[in-house]
């Protein structure tokens, strides 16, 4: 099975390192695919990732052809998620907030992420688990991504699909 990950634009790593972590390819958001901050303005987002917490802007971006959405703080916006699922958008679950925080903040992030995942799974959404690492330090191996996804409540199959097929589908077509 081929595994994929998405990291932030500034994340620097070698191809050898990417191979060691078990990924076929680590994509960079900003380089390999556009990422738009929905909190700044609602623009056309065809084939890109929409990121933010402003639901109305995000809905506009989803309707204009966003491939995937990433919600700030895993805030559940029911209407947005409904429209995103209807449009075949992938919901990205980034682990950077969990990995780089500590103590109560990490606990709170874990709780929010698991609630979000539980809601999205119930609605049959396409879910992708990514590290969204901003540096090499925050990157994870494919095994770690699978286990973190399982910790949030995903099944083994959902976790593996979420870092292979679903992540790849964001970059296909």
């Amino acid at each position, binding site marked *: 099975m081929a595994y994929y990950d998405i990291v932030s634009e500034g994340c620097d790593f070698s191809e050898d390192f990417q191979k060691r972590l078990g990924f076929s390819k680590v994509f960079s958001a900003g380089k390999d695919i556009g990422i738009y901050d929905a909190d700044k303005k609602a623009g056309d987002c065809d084939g890109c990732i929409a990121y933010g917490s402003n639901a109305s802007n995000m809905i506009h971006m989803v309707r204009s052809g966003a491939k995937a959405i990433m919600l700030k703080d895993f805030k559940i916006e029911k209407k947005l998620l409904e429209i995103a699922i209807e449009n075949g958008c992938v919901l990205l679950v980034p682990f950077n907030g969990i990995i780089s925080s500590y103590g109560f903040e990490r606990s709170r992030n874990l709780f929010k992420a698991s609630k979000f995942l539980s809601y999205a799974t119930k609605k049959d959404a396409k879910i992708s688990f990514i590290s969204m690492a901003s540096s090499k330090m925050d990157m*994870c191996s494919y095994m770690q991504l699978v286990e973190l996804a399982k910790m949030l409540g995903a099944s083994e199959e959902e976790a593996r699909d979420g870092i292979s097929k679903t992540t790849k589908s964001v970059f296909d077509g």
Partner: protein
Amino acid sequence: MIREKHRYLLVEYNNEMPQDRTAFSKTLHKEIMSCFGQLHYFKGSFRIMEFPSGNFFIIRSSLNEYENLIRAFALIKRLGGDDAAFYTLRSSGTIKALKQYLSKMQKDAEGTE
């Protein structure tokens, strides 16, 4: 008496491995305990078995807790006051299999250079 089943993990440390392996091991165990919690830690029977080469090491865990250990390694970001990162590369039921994997991986890396 039922024999406890173990699982071994091959882990990469992002910094250079310190000379004092005992101190490194102690600090790492402390960090793992802070992730697991005191009540859960003893079930893992964690032990660093070997430092095969470079910044890699092989750690043992009980079969029931190895998944939590993989998660703990993803979450540990500081070790003894320094920034640190641990990448779990592979898991196996034997140390030999992990050593073979590591030497194959290192040979492949040399081949591509």
